């Protein structure tokens, strides 16, 4: 088990390094103005001096090596244009907690709701729950979120008699953003849960469990539900971690000072170092999420023999 985790970690690290190299090399192809706050006012000589000072005139492998050294020291570098010379890690540290708070609550709500809805839908295919759920899922998938987000904000704030925008001192103002964030992910979890539950419920071993006299509810909980959750478990770490990235639309609607718009902001401002740092962070989160998902899956599914899998790959 430990060996498997170690191997899996090693492979995750290699993927991450490859991503860093690709991102770094690609961003070096961007216009150099992305490294300076007041590029327009600078003379070509000033630009060249600036670039030399940043080490950007070194050969690419040297630059890459330096970047890895810097990362190894735990530094993401400083912002070039977004907030000049301000450490990127500090910018993220100020914004991420907001996104995390909203995101984690939303995921925490949508997993039980989504799984519950999915099971209800699967229990009676074509029944009332299935129809309601299908309408809901299709609505969530088909209608641009902007529309129902806006409606929710307008009528929701009116109904609750609270301000339109998020206020950190008032917990009530968190309700609507959390609902907005949960709505699509409830649909997402319900959709997969329904599908996996239907799959499991039709399997032969469920028939055998029924024939051997196990009561219906026990068959559903101990056999169908338990087994249908296994593939979902793999999705959960990723959805938890990616809440860190925040939601652009919900955060800007309620003016939550989170991570949501940051990526778009720094791309628009051509802040090369920040784009680089954020892409790497999001890549890392995804890789870690997949890794944790695999490990979680191995914990709940005895068929995944870690030792053998490590050998086979």
């Amino acid at each position, binding site marked *: 088990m430990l060996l498997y985790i170690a191997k899996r970690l090693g492979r995750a690290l290699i993927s991450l390094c490859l991503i860093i190299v690709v991102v770094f090399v690609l961003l070096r192809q961007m216009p150099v103005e992305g490294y300076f706050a007041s590029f327009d006012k600078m003379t070509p000589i000033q630009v060249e001096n600036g670039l030399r000072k940043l080490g950007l005139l070194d050969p690419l492998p040297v630059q890459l090596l330096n970047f890895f050294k810097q990362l190894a020291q735990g530094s993401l570098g400083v912002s070039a244009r977004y907030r000049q010379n301000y450490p990127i890690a500090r910018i993220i540290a100020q914004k991420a907690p907001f996104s995390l708070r909203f995101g984690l609550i939303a995921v925490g709500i949508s997993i039980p709701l989504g799984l519950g809805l999915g099971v209800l839908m699967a229990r009676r295919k074509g029944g009332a729950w299935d129809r309601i759920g299908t309408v809901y899922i299709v609505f969530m998938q088909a209608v641009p979120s902007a529309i129902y987000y806006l409606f929710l904000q307008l009528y929701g704030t009116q109904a609750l008699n609270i301000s339109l925008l998020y206020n950190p001192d008032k917990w009530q103002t968190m309700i609507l953003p959390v609902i907005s964030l949960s709505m699509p992910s409830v649909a997402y979890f319900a959709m997969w849960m329904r599908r996996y539950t239907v799959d499991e419920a039709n399997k032969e071993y469920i028939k055998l469990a029924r024939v*051997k006299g196990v009561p219906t509810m026990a068959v559903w909980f101990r056999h169908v539900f338990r087994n249908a959750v296994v593939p979902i478990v793999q999705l959960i770490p990723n959805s938890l971690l990616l809440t860190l990235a925040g939601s652009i639309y919900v955060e800007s609607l309620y003016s939550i000072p989170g991570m949501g718009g940051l990526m778009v902001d720094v791309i628009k401002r051509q802040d090369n170092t920040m784009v680089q740092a954020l892409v790497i962070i999001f890549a890392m989160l995804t890789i870690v999420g997949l890794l944790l998902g695999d490990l979680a899956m191995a914990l709940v599914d005895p*068929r995944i023999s870690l030792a053998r899998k490590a050998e086979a790959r």
Partner: protein
Amino acid sequence: MTFNEELVAESAALRNEPAASRTGESRDTVLSIRDLHVRFRLRGQSLHAIRGVSLDVARHETLAIVGESGAGKSVLMKNLCGLLDPNGWIDGGSIMYEGMDLASFRSERDWARVRGKHIAMVTQDPMTSLNPLKTVGWQIEEALRYNQQLRGAAARRRMLELLADVGIPDTQRRASQYPHEFSGGMRQRVVIAIALACNPKLLICDEPTTALDVTIQAQILRLIHDIKVKYGLTLIYITHDLGVVANVADRIAVMYAGDIVELGACEEVFFDPRHPYTWALLSSLPQLGVKKQELYAIQGTPPNLFQPIRGDAFAPRNPWALAVDFAHRPPYGRVSPTHKARTWLLDPRAPAVEPPPAVRSIRTLFERGAFTENPQGGNG
């Protein structure tokens, strides 16, 4: 020896036992199916899957139901434990078991009275019939809990006994393993152990050896026979393999297109078959042909059960079909007190028809007593 010969040799061994248990001298009826009709709704059409089947099963007997895929063997048996698919329903008839009419059962609560404790099942494919995420021991103990009210240490002790009973060695270790750590044959043994854990009176084996390779088939057949004797079970054995049937059955019911076309004691159906469909089935047995002879295949396909069947369902494929076969459904003709067949050929007015040579050759071998020793007749 070929595998088939081994199977036959095995069958010879199985037959050396008191005749009473084989023929079911005390013919008290456990299960009585009367004029059962089952229909399915499929794409807006109604499919008549079981067309008026009547069948009695005697206590402690082994009844084999044979027929090709789609004949309705499994559908018939699913009615006995409430496993009919949701789009299917019983459209008349009764299934009497211990004073209960299973055909009238609608709710899961009704079925809970019968499932496991009375009727258990060994399913077709051992690769899929065990829960992959639970240990083998857990799955057996679950059956013990609901049918014999055994829990904890008592359940575990019984579970280990059952594993040993079905021939799984090293029970302590094996019990804590998962199904994927078992081979197909071993899994089928576990499925049988689960069925036994229910302590049933009637055990339905739905093609229990079809998914296994031939050497394992013989072992599982032997095992099913042993546990049948040890636990005093009544067996219903569904299969499309006549070779298997010859080994296990006291009586044989041949099904075609949702109907039982011939029913009789094992010897009667094998050595004195009367229905042309049974003839065709027997002729298609490879081991009965002479070397290098072309394998016999039944022409055509089974009828479309979406449409009402007129006359004898087998008539369009039947080279011996009479004109009346296409117009009127034949009644059962009695051959002996235990043997009947649904064919007009048994009508006194019917012309005399000789069964095909393959069937006749089995009969002559039987009459010469060849089958009592070596049914292969030494042409291996």
